[in-house]
């Protein structure tokens, strides 16, 4: 078993190394670099472009080097904890991310929690009382949740909030707290802003977890071991939770890994609409302006989360399912 874990861990490191190369190449794929878009910006605002200065900047950032040398330079700095500088913000990438990662993690984990707390019980109930009113209502809501684009729901909720409560739901803080230091009032203000992003980002996830839970529990309920357990004289609720629900959770456990980055990147559009200071929104802006170190770090951050998440959910699955443990 520990050999399996060690092997999985090595694979994970290997995958991460490959992903760093892929991330770097992807960022380099669009024609031009940050300086081309910088020159364009200067020209459109009517300023003159000094060729010598551009050349100096290009050399300073190493943009004149061949691709593989640029990569080696970049990765050797990252290993030492230097993620480069944002051309756009003119600040270290690490500093930009340090601001955004806590907020992103907060929103994501809260969304994940709310998703499971709502979706799993409803999914279980829908399966046990298949074709009941609750099952039908849950099904309709979950299909709406799956089919409606997040940004649309975000806009609708923001509009409703403004009209009904006169509350501006955009951003994570009201303007007066945006740059204020942390205080109880700021915290309460944040709590007021949190529900809408959580609902919007969590809706489609809730819907799909609900469907997965319902389907996988329906499969389990048909199996003989449920009947055998019932023939022992167990109470219905204890039986349900101890046997079929326990087994039916496996597909959900195995997807926790890719739900996490899914929430981060999937929330990008929502984050832009709701003006949330998350990593997704930062990455989007960096990609547009070819702010390569920021973009590459964000892409790497998301892929690493996926790889780590998958590793963690494999470990979790091993813990809950003995059939995998003793493979």
């Amino acid at each position: 078993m520990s050999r399996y874990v060690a092997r999985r861990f090595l694979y994970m490191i290997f995958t991460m190394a490959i992903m760093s190369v892929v991330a770097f190449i992807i960022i380099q794929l669009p024609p031009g670099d940050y300086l081309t878009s910088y020159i364009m910006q200067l020209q459109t605002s009517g300023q003159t472009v000094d060729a010598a200065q551009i050349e100096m900047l290009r050399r300073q950032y190493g943009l004149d080097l061949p691709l593989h040398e640029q990569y080696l330079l970049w990765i050797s700095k990252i290993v030492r904890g230097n993620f480069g500088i944002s051309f756009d913000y003119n600040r270290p990438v690490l500093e930009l991310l340090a601001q955004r990662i806590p907020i992103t993690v907060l929103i994501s984990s809260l969304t994940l929690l709310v998703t499971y707390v709502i979706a799993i019980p409803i999914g279980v109930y829908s399966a046990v009382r298949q074709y009941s009113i609750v099952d039908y209502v849950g099904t309709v809501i979950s299909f709406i949740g799956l089919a409606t684009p997040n940004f649309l729901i975000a806009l609708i909720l923001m509009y409703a909030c403004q009209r009904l409560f006169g509350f501006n739901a955009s951003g994570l803080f009201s303007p007066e707290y945006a740059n204020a230091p942390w205080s109880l009032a700021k915290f309460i203000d944040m709590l007021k802003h949190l529900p809408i992003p959580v609902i919007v980002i969590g809706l489609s996830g809730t819907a799909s977890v609900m469907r997965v839970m319902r389907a996988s529990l329906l499969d389990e309920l048909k199996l003989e071991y449920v009947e055998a357990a019932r023939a022992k004289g167990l109470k219905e609720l204890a039986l349900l939770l101890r046997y079929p629900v326990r087994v039916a959770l496996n597909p959900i456990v195995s997807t926790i890994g890719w739900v996490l980055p899914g929430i981060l990147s999937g929330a990008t559009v929502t984050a832009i609409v709701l003006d949330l200071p998350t990593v997704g929104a930062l990455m989007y802006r960096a990609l547009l302006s070819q702010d390569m170190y920021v973009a590459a770090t964000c892409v790497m951050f998301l892929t690493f989360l996926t790889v780590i998440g998958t590793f963690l959910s494999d470990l979790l699955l091993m813990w809950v399912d003995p059939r995998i443990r003793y493979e």
Partner: protein
Amino acid sequence: MGATLLEVNGLKTYFHLEEGVLKAVDGVSFRIERGKVLGIIGESGCGKSVTARSILGLVARPGKIVGGEILFHRADGSVVDLARLDPQGDEIRDIRGKEISMIFQEPRRSLSPVHTIGEQITEALLLHRTQDHKEAREIAIDMLRRVGMSNPEVRFHSYPHQLSGGMCQRAMIAMALCCRPALLIADEPTTALDVTVQAQIIDLMLELKEQIGMAMLYITHDLGVISEVADEVAVMYLGRVVEYAKTERLFENPLHPYTIGLFNSLPAFSSAKGRLQAIPGNVPIPIDPPPACGFATRCSKAMAGVCDAAVPELVEVEEEHYVRCFLHHEERAVS
């Protein structure tokens, strides 16, 4: 005649489907004495499994017991009608696993894949026999030893997928018998196993039956197995008992055309050489069945205007030998 343990009278279990009413069990009666084995034999779909599940209140929706009674003589001397109990109520749960246990056809699929067999056996013990976890563990290991598991202390921690089918069925038997039930319902317990393992499991069950002094309801489609285990046999076809007798008598003198067909379709019993004499056709699905003998469509001796016009009564043609067939209707009918 010994003391009655279970008496089933006119049991009807129907499934209300969109296509109509599926009469899976349609007026089944039988009696099991303490310590005796009743075999129920029939093809798939004849209602034998639904009969077994009706006794324990395990019939899944949309199935429902709609008539008849299942009188069970409990250990404390009281008699309860299991057909009237709430299938999720306390009383039936107190009987399940403690006074009536059940083992199933697919041993590996009848055990939870994510719990050790030790956990699953002790669970039954903790429900019915003791509150003490240590004692439950000891009883469970002792049971595993008695069902012939080598290294029971190690097997206690095994998961079903680590054991062979035969070992899983032994674990299942240990789980079913750990509370010393008065009745064991065995629903095709050896069908999914190899022939050699089959014989071992049957011997084990008979041995434990003697030790515990329990009765058995043994469901199978295998006449060979029935002849080994059963004191009495009920032959079922399309939700009804069509023949009911002591095992020796049924094997000496089968009377119902369906029972005769079953014997003839067995290689060992078949008189003719060459091709086996299979019963032609398939078991019909009893959705809104017409008032006729269920076997009339496949019976070589069917009489037009008689067999397809009414349901024959179960009549006692000789002492303790009952047949549901118009060919034997001159004899006295039992109501």
